[in-house]
């Protein structure tokens, strides 16, 4: 035990004191990245053309009748204050620092190594965990009363577990069944629970009290359902580790790449606003553009 503790202390304390440390990163793929950016630009331009066409039409009687369905707009005065409620600030800062050091010493090197694996292997792993997470999404969409989305998650799970060979391939996305995960944190939000104070969760990162409860419940749900006996016993540790590495490898974030002493304040500010905007979206969902009677079908 003591040996483990000293290894951990050595790792987190920055064990290397040599002049230079090298970290071989996965190669960049500029040509492919730029091609993807061009495709995004073209999508946005096409959407712009469509919206411009719609906007150029004269409002009709249908528009008037549709108006009451639109939610009241968020006004600037509705914005939360610039300051953020953080009664556990000291503990949070400590955890943030722990996470940063753990990330630097363990997560990032392992994730970088993982990113050297062939892309199809990584995609398979990512799809596999994404498919398992669909179970939690089905339950939570149902609890949220968003049955359409629940059915979509169910469809994805059914298709990908069978045709996608245990979830290794995302076949469903080819049928326009796009992945849209949810969890118990969002369910609590839908039920009206306030996010509560900002909370930095060890190894996980920025969240809120509600997010923390949601995360615990999601793990509990997986443990109770225990699909294919993956969530109990020794294999659950291996599975959890691979899942964590896969998730980390898919997040383009480095602690303190800003170099700023105010990074914690910045992350807290952005995270909580993001959460509040998502909450506003949950409670007052607008009529989706495609079902707006003012917009002709097929546009």
């Amino acid at each position, binding site marked *: 035990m003591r040996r483990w503790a000293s290894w951990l202390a050595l790792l987190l304390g920055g064990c290397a004191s040599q002049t*230079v440390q*090298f970290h071989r990163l996965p190669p960049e793929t*500029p040509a492919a990245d730029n091609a993807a950016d061009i495709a995004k630009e073209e999508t946005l331009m096409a959407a*712009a053309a469509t919206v411009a066409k719609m906007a150029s039409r004269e409002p009709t009687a249908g528009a008037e009748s549709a108006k009451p369905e639109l939610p009241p*707009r968020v006004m*600037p005065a509705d914005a939360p204050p*610039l300051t953020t409620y953080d009664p556990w600030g000291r503990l949070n800062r400590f955890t943030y620092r722990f996470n940063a050091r753990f990330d630097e010493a363990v997560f990032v090197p392992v994730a970088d190594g993982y990113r050297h694996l062939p892309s199809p292997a990584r995609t398979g792993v990512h799809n596999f965990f994404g498919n398992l997470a669909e179970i939690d999404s089905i339950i939570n969409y149902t609890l949220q009363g968003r049955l359409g989305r629940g059915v979509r998650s169910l469809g994805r799970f059914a298709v990908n577990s069978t045709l996608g060979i245990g979830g290794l391939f995302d076949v469903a996305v080819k049928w326009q069944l796009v992945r849209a995960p949810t969890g118990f944190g969002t369910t609590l939000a839908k039920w009206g629970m306030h996010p509560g104070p900002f909370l930095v969760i060890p190894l996980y990162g920025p969240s809120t009290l509600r997010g923390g409860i949601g995360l615990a419940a999601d793990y509990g749900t997986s443990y109770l359902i225990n699909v294919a006996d993956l969530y109990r016993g020794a294999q659950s540790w291996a599975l959890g580790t691979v899942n964590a590495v896969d998730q980390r490898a898919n997040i383009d974030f480095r602690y303190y790449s800003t170099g700023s*002493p105010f990074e914690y304040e910045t992350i807290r500010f952005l995270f909580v606003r993001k959460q509040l905007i998502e909450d506003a979206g949950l409670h007052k969902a607008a009529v989706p553009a495609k079902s707006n009677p*003012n917009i002709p079908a097929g546009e």
Partner: protein
Amino acid sequence: MSPRFLFPSIACLICASALADDLKIPPPAAPGPATGLADSAALRATVFGTPAKDIAPLPDKVPLLEMDLKLPWARPVPAVFWFDRRLRVWFSAKDKPAPLAIVISGTGSDGNTAKLSTLRAVLYGAGYHVLTMPSPTHPGFIVSASSTGVAGDLLQDGRDLYAAMGEIVAHLPRKVRITDVDVLGYSLGGANAAIVKSIDASEHKLHIHRALMINPPVSLFATVGRLDKLYAITLGNGDAGIEQFYQQLYAALANLYRESDRVEIDEDFLLGAAASVLKTDAQFSAAIALTFRLALSNVFFAGDLYSGAGVVIDPQHPPKVGDSLEEAARVLRSKTFAEYFTRIFAPYYLAHRPNSTVESLIAQNRLDVIGDPLRDDPDYYAQTNSDDLILDSAELAWLKKTLGSRIVVYDHGGHLGNLGDRQQVADMLEMLAGRWRGGAP
């Protein structure tokens, strides 16, 4: 997040918000400058950067090595900057002998920004080993490599950069074979690059061949004065302006999100939203001014800590790990570049540089401290835009007169809004290869 594909999305998102505004089409953006400092096109180009479709051809794969260095002369690391204890740079090696391009980042930025990533790709594709470095105004550099802790002095930052480059080059992987060394940078990094070459001309440690400045400032203090003015016009003084701007952005984002069909706010949503919520010249100006102001907050904080000036940090009780820095961040938001100069920079350098005056400090922070080599040495080059908001017409004229045929001035692009486009990259590569013969902008 690369902002380069934001540019075309603006049309889409202005239209999207028009839909939200009960299907009314917004009036076209005012054609003239709102702030008197830059016109609409320049502001938009500055914020959105080069559209992806205009980016120069890029290679399929670029290897990347992160190097974290502990410099022998590094000062003790303050507790609150524990994470900046090593200088972090990025290196891409060719597997055969090749020239080395050292690229310096812009104000307050690290050595791996999206702009640097684009430059790295085109330079690597053109046959260079590429080393990308943070700006000497990035907190990571200030803590791990600065000899003063008070950033923003062209000559001192140049000396610190030069020393750091020497140490980095000495520790590159052994198999790397370098045939020539060029240095370049964008924005403040451009001025830094030219200063570094001038230092090398007397010290001969790196044997730098060519230096290229991309959208450089001419007078640091005139430029930051312009940025202070931009901030004052668009956001005012104190917290009221910033709070109002934040509230506008928040409401616009929230409305867009509610009208979207998304489950969470992701990168794609933010890309579009950023283009939508900034509509007027004043808002674009505010975004630019705020970006520079946030970079200044870091420089100000570090300078205050290292110099012991006591503006936001009690020199007797510096903050410890875990202490809240919220109040310091709030106070620093309203601090201008001018205040940084009068309260941190000038007191420090007046005390440490014998016979200096406020006027001499300002004069030393103009590119004309290296006016002679810029004029006479054929290995200095520059690229800029006629509508770059960090230059005024007199400064642009000075650059043209000093560099003659070794500067290219494009008509449009604002500040760095054309970095990476085909023409800029083609000209850059010609300049670095010594093949530049001047050309029509």
